[in-house]
């Protein structure tokens, strides 16, 4: 058996994984502080914070031989019979010294620094530093500068860990960032005219910065991070389905931060997704339910609107008409399931169609290459490609799977439009929730002119909304909980970050009311459990639970064991929820 000795205790080394000392120690609950190391970037060992004492144990005699010098934990492999000491006086004195050095020229502006609260310097200063230092000379002052339209660099707060430089070199391979000058005048800079603006993953340099040097101007000075409640969610901006934390305070979203998921997004997310949170804060979102009376849309309470929907659709059927439902790829699988059940339950001849699938450009895949960066030891790094999909919706595959289950084939929106134009349907129920404008004036009129009863369930005011008979205000991506199936067929759970806004209801509740489900608000887990029973494609979600890192639709739950792999989070960026209940 392979074992490692950390601070006097023996621990077994996990099979089949190549870990360094930091990862291994963290796995057994011992923190080795670090700044420059990042599991996706090459090892440079220049912050010197993770230095520990190492040695080896002779397996025969049991004699332990320590090396005289300190070595950085980030480049020490966790090998059999290695001895790590992370808490000796020598190590502690070294950590204290590094903290003193790092803080020499660091400005004392934590109060106005957005990183405060999730800052490596702050956290380690408490754990490993000291309250005072002996530096009485004048500090260096470096003015702040912009590295892109969205990212600001406060050079005086920088600790030269070069994570950002390595990110642009090794992950995006665009190399915008560089170190300029030498010694304690060294600073991060962009080449003139070569900013991060064109980099689709630029926002990640803010996330990986352990201090407040690189800051997102979109979030700048708006909130203190300890006020934010963090909710594990999934980005809905494209079909990659990046794992994110949606961070909320005072009833609105403030930012998205990527969550590590080795099967989906590794540690990153694209800027387009990062700033898509703004759609949930839009003041122009539908704020009430409307029913058409006397050729005018009137604001009505929810129950009236729901009755109007049910009555209208049943009337169409009684008059011998047909009903079609449009399921947008922005719906969660639970919502799609309930809606399909409702439409099919009205009349088995009713038709279900997939809503318009927005697509823009082509898929962009970024393949990291650590050899582009520093030629240090890169053997710990598993480089995984990151794709920004052209398909700008979160759940096409999930909705398609449900449509296939209910009627054998997927009818596209174009096909449905044709059939509507042929006056095949008299009643139409469109559930959209699309973030983007998805239908124009002309298409709306065309669609409307052929049906006698039109229900629209949406979050935004679209041209179709003005023409519909009933407008239901659904929930935005931030307001609903449920599962999405991403481009790789991975079923992932996204939690709700905000309560449903005034006048709107989560789509799941709307469908539940139409279906007369007993009980109050619906829990997505219960629906998912039903769905897993009813639709074989979703059998992995049996019991209504999904692993934290998601699970592949086709796989059996046990075969997807790797999905339970521990994701990585920087120790100073711990999702802590709101600092206090407000």
């Amino acid at each position, binding site marked *: 058996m392979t074992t490692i000795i950390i601070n006097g205790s023996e621990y077994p080394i996990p099979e089949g994984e190549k870990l360094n000392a930091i990862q291994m120690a963290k796995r057994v609950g011992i923190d080795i502080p670090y700044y420059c190391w990042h599991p996706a970037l090459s090892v440079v060992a220049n912050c010197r914070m993770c230095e520990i004492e190492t040695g080896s144990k002779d397996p025969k005699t049991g004699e332990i031989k320590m090396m005289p010098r300190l070595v950085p934990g980030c480049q020490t492999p966790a090998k059999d019979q290695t001895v790590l000491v992370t808490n000796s006086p020598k190590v502690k004195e070294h950590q204290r010294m590094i903290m003193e050095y790092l803080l020499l020229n660091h400005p004392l502006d934590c109060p106005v620094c957005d990183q405060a609260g999730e800052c490596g310097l702050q956290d380690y200063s408490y754990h490993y530093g000291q309250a005072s230092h002996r530096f009485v000379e004048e500090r260096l002052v470096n003015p702040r500068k912009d590295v892109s339209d969205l990212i600001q660099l406060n050079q005086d707060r920088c600790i030269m860990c070069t994570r950002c430089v390595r990110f642009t070199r090794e992950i995006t391979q665009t190399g915008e960032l560089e170190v300029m000058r*030498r*010694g304690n005048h060294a600073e991060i800079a962009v080449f003139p005219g070569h900013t991060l603006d064109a980099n689709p993953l630029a926002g990640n340099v803010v996330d990986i910065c352990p201090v407040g040097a690189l800051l997102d101007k979109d979030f700048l000075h708006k909130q203190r991070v300890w006020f934010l409640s963090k909710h594990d969610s999934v980005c809905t901006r494209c079909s990659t389905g990046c794992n994110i934390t949606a961070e909320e305070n005072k009833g609105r979203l403030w930012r998205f931060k990527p969550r590590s998921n080795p099967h989906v997004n590794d540690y990153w997310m694209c800027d387009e997704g990062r700033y898509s949170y703004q759609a949930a804060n839009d003041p122009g979102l539908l704020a009430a339910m409307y029913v058409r009376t006397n050729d005018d849309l009137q604001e009505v309470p929810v129950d009236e609107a729901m009755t109007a929907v049910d009555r209208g659709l049943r009337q169409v059927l009684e008059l011998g008409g047909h009903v079609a439902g449009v399921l947008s790829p922005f719906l969660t699988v639970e919502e799609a399931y309930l809606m399909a059940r409702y439409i099919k339950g009205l009349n088995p001849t009713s038709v279900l169609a997939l809503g318009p699938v927005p697509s823009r450009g082509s898929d962009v895949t970024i393949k990291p290459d650590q050899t582009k960066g520093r030629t240090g030891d890169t053997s710990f790094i598993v480089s995984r490609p990151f794709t920004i999909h052209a398909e700008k919706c979160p759940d096409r595959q999930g909705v398609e799977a449900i449509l296939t289950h209910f009627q054998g084939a997927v009818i596209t929106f174009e096909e449905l439009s044709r059939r509507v134009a042929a006056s095949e349907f008299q009643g139409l129920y469109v559930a959209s929730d699309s973030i983007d404008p998805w239908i124009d004036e002309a298409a709306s009129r065309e669609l409307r002119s052929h049906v006698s009863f039109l229900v629209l369930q949406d979050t935004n005011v679209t041209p179709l909304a003005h023409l519909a008979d009933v407008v239901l205000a659904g929930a935005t991506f931030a307001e609903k909980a449920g599962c999405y199936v991403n481009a790789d067929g991975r079923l992932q759970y996204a939690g709700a970050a905000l309560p449903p806004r005034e006048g709107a209801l989560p789509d799941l509740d709307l469908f539940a009311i139409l279906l007369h489900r007993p009980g109050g608000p619906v829990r997505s887990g219960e629906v998912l459990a039903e769905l897993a029973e009813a639709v074989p494609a979703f059998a992995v979600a049996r019991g209504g639970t999904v692993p934290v890192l998601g699970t592949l639709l086709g796989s059996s739950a046990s075969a997807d064991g790797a999905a339970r792999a521990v994701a990585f989070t920087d120790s100073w960026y711990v999702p802590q929820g709101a600092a206090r209940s407000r």
Partner: protein
Amino acid sequence: MSTFEPVLSRNWSVADSHTLKVYESRGGYQAARKTLATMAPDAVVNLVKDSELRGRGGAGFPCGLKWTFLPKDRKATLMCVNADESEPATFNNRLLMERDPHQLLEGILIACFATRASTAYIYLRFEYIRAYRILEAAIEEARAAGHLGKNIYGSGYNLDVWVHRGAGAYICGEETGLIESLEGKRGWPRIKPPFPAIEGAFRKPTVVNNVETLCCVPHILERGAIWFKSIGTPKSYGPKLYTISGHVNRQVCVELPLGITCRALIEEHGGGVWKGRKAKAAVPGGISMGLLSAAELDTPLDFESLRKPGCLGLGTAAVTVLDDQTRIIDYLYNTCRFFAHESCGQCTPCREGTGWLNKMIQRIRSGGGRLEDLDLMLNLADNLGIMPGTTICGLADGAAWPIKNAIAKFRGELEDHIRTHQSPAHEVSRLQEDIAQGRQADDSRARLPILNGLLTAPASSRQAPGIGSV
């Protein structure tokens, strides 16, 4: 020592010594021909290993041993010649390259043959323009004469030599920094492992050797390991080029067997301390190695003995003499300024520590010293470089030893300086101390803007405590 006959510098006094003609006329390239024709590469490695030739670049690592670290199954090997002679007061490599470039090329040829490297880069210090021109010319000559190029001497062995000029950074004299710079990157030393012998320049096994080391190689092959080990002192064998500079009458570079005492070097070869003064101290081997006091001048200058008086090592064997009218604080000021300027800025202790020491020395020198600063500097030096493993490369060690030595050996003088040189303009104010200690400053000046590191408040805020007075 009069029996010693110069080896490395034997051609220096000859006219046009840098030309191939002169070099060949004095027996040049014979060793290379013999080696390539008769010896197997491993035999060469073993011979050099037997000679216990230690690297002349500063660290004194056995050269042959280094060559054996190369992986056995390597496909390609690179040779880097470290000609980035940036250590202050050192100029032996420059003379070797300017006066006898073919000796170096022959050494490169043999070393590359031994390590089976087919490409060699001479990483040349930017400022050595003359050496650059001479080397380029010499390589042309050698290539034309068949000493370099394809199928050298019919042995089927190919070698190309390129001269690469650095951009003027001290740190590029460190082997991994040199490699990074050679690759076209920023001259930042790499972490080890992997060592360059396993994965060096362009991710290939790489040997990095100093100019003077390589210059020794042809002579070892010509005269044998026994001859080489007959020169010098135990554990430090062979001839060595010493440079003498500073406050001596003659600033020269002389070749002597390893182990000559510092005093002998100054008196016999440097012509004594200038202006009839006495030596106060001497830097034995480039400023990063530390300081010898006047009483310790009898220390032999070899790889081992210098540890005794508390120096880091022989270094580049560049002796700099300080006369008795030189202030130690000035020496420290120059040293610290140099290291603060040349620190690459990669590792935290070196980046911040050298800058801090520099600022502190500047303050002490201009009259703001405190007695506790000396202990603080010692403590910093200990943390910075004397404790092993705090940084990637050895620059921090080099920055730490002079301070440790100077304070250990000249503490009295430094304390006297602090006591007698006090200038109110430079002294540490109460407020600065309070801020550093994290104390609540106790006077009205506490109302300072604490943001953006502004230490001094606008004058108006210091006067009346009432804020409405403006």
